[in-house]
């Protein structure tokens, strides 16, 4: 089973080294195979994320968790960056905070996030991030693409207008459920998540109807039919457990 090369299987013969480094001037200690994001959160330091979800592989794609490391010119995604002894990490410099805001604004312009009519209103991670990062408006022009809603599945529906292409659904379906019903078609700005051969979800031959994709979706893109706004709370606590039980450590971190 593939796993992120820097996350090793800890055994007596192959122990994980402990090291100390600094996050925002604070001394922290960590295993060498724990990502900076993990260590930061263990220490109560919050770093915003969108594509990351505990229990799924890392993609390093949304770029919201970027951090600065002293002596490194490039900004690094904390979810796939691993600590070194005496490294100095800064998670909240003005530089990264500004960039995070701008990236989030770009995500808002990409699809049609009309929050007031969204099933996830109040439980939406994209919305929460806007509050967290202090985004009160979006400076870039909205793109207003034309996207469809697929409600052909008997229990679920997908509204591509609200999709942020985090690919959590693709990963959970592949890594945890093992069905790989979801994937992403096209490239660039025309990318879109699909079921099977880009067919209506209801006609998918591979979907088991487990609904995990709905549970992991950060926005109102994937939702359960017949649920009201207030009921649209996601259950995800089972993910790390299932990841462990099914022996799939970071299977597709390079997707």
């Amino acid at each position, binding site marked *: 089973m*593939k796993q992120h*090369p*820097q996350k090793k299987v800890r055994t007596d013969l192959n122990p994980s080294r402990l090291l100390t480094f600094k996050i925002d001037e604070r001394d922290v200690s960590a295993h060498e195979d724990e990502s900076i994001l993990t260590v930061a959160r263990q220490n109560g330091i919050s770093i915003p994320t969108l594509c990351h979800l505990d229990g799924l592989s890392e*993609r*390093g*794609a*949304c*770029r919201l968790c*970027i951090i600065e490391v002293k002596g490194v010119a*490039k*900004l690094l*995604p904390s979810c*796939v960056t691993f600590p070194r002894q005496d490294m100095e990490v800064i998670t909240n410099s003005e530089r990264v905070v500004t*960039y995070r805001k*701008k*990236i989030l604004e*770009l*995500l808002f*312009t*990409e699809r049609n996030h009309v929050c007031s009519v969204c099933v996830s209103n109040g439980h939406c991670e994209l919305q929460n991030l806007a509050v967290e990062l202090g985004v009160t408006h979006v*400076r*870039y*022009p909205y*793109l207003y693409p034309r996207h469809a809603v697929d409600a052909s599945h008997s229990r679920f529906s997908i509204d591509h207008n609200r999709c*942020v*292409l985090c690919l959590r659904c693709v990963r959970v379906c592949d890594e945890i459920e093992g069905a790989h019903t979801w994937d*992403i078609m*096209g*490239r*660039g*700005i*025309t*990318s879109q998540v699909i079921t099977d051969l880009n067919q209506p979800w209801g006609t998918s031959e591979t979907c088991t109807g487990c609904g995990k994709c709905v549970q992991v979706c950060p926005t109102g893109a994937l939702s359960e039919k017949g649920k009201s706004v207030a009921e649209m709370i996601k259950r995800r606590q089972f993910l790390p457990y299932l990841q462990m039980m099914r022996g799939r450590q970071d299977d597709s*971190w*390079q*997707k």
Partner: protein
Amino acid sequence: MTLNSEDLHQIAKIEKDKQDGFQHRIHVCVAAGCLSCGSGVLMDALGKEVNRRGLDNWCQIKGVGCLGLCAEGPLISLATSGTYYQGVKVSDVSDILDALGGNPVGRLLCPADTAFFKRQVRIVTENCGRIDPERIEEYIAESGYESLYLALTQMTPPEVIEQVTRSGLRGRGGAGYPTGLKWTTVSKAISSTKFIICNADEGDPGAFMDRSVLESDPHRVIEGMAIAGYATGASQGYIYVRAEYPLAVKRVRLALAQAERLGVLGNNIFNTHFNFTIKVRLGAGAFVCGEETALIASIEGRMGRPRPRPPFPAEFGLWEHPTLINNVETFANVPPIIRKGGKWFAGIGTEKSKGTKVFALAGKIVNTGLIEIPMGTPLRDIVFAIGGGIPGGKGFKAVQTGGPSGGCIPEQFLDMPVDYDSLLQVGSIMGSGGMIVMDETSCMVDVAKFFMEFCMSESCGKCAPCRVGTRQIYDILCRITGNQSTPEDLAMLEDLCDLMKNTSLCGLGQSAPNPVLTTLKYFRDEYLSHIHDRTCLAGACKTVVEVS
């Protein structure tokens, strides 16, 4: 079958004797450029006419790789007298054969004593236009596979790497990473399986160096890869080549078959314990696959989406094994380095950029084609002396290097020596070697828009800054060229470029703003006149009309 040094020399001698047996040798360029203007038909006609005249043993007709001056194709050269003919048609065949041994045919003559030919220093392209790329014997006759033999039988892997390091060779794919250092990292990686990948996914629009090398001298690349395999401890290689280059694919496949048949690839090469085989993988039309992690994903049969580095492919590459990825031109430099020594190579070029570089000259320039020049040649010499200047008496405006990741270099830097560092200083990059010349009729905003459209449709869509950023920047450039812009657009353009540069996941996204940034820097007046005066200074944007 295994080969030894004597066998190699024997093959070379037979081949040379054979060639010396001919009174005249006519080389017809059958690289893609000349083929597309009919050199294939021309070669057939020449062969038939020679046969009809019963001169088969007196005059040899041979298809060869690129002769360089693609604009004037089909090109042929008379190897015995050094005469070049350009724009040759089937109807010229009789005249050419009649003139052999006498005065050349004046109307077809291509002056060979010009700077275009004289200023070139040929290392990578030394065999281009001289040997038949479809015959391994001709490559061997030009000291081919001698370097591999030398490396395998007389050098240890560290010694091979030592020579490459000493040569100062840097990656010819764009970024200019020291090749020796890359090889060292792979050789030190602990793994029983390692891979060598040759990146021939030449995706830059306007670049055709790698294609020419593969079409003209495929064995050189194969030999370079085998030497790299020996030096780093790999026994399997892949050539990832664009499916859009059918001729290159065909010739590489042929060359691989010949090399295997002769035993310079396979098991126990030259009676040593070294085994090495190479497979061809076809690209499928994705520029981003030039990025090494995306290329690896593509060879593994997946979508070519880059992943964050580290870990680097040198430690964790193809199928999770240490993998060395170099560009076609980089590998093509290796055999002469081993043969003549790293010190010899380091004597060419500038302090930090050694050797030569192959450039594809195109755009508004007289001598469109392929050139190889020492690093550090001033840009002015490339454009005006070698390239022959701008056609039609128009004024020079800029040179674009590095493709969609590069920048536009204005007139004020024409005297700059062309090497990795000076290009970087003016905001461009060496890139793979495309060089597009623009004259006064080219609108620089339009050029920036062209490259941004390219990056937008080639963005893999994985990271948000590149996926959405390219589209937003493209929209702004469309507004500017389309008479819809506001003064605020300029600030937003710069803001988005900065965002993409600093937060994108891979090199494509990080460098995609370069064409916009350099044009903003050097041709800001053109942006301003579009925005404020609704005028295109170059007169290229038709939708921008003057407001009365």
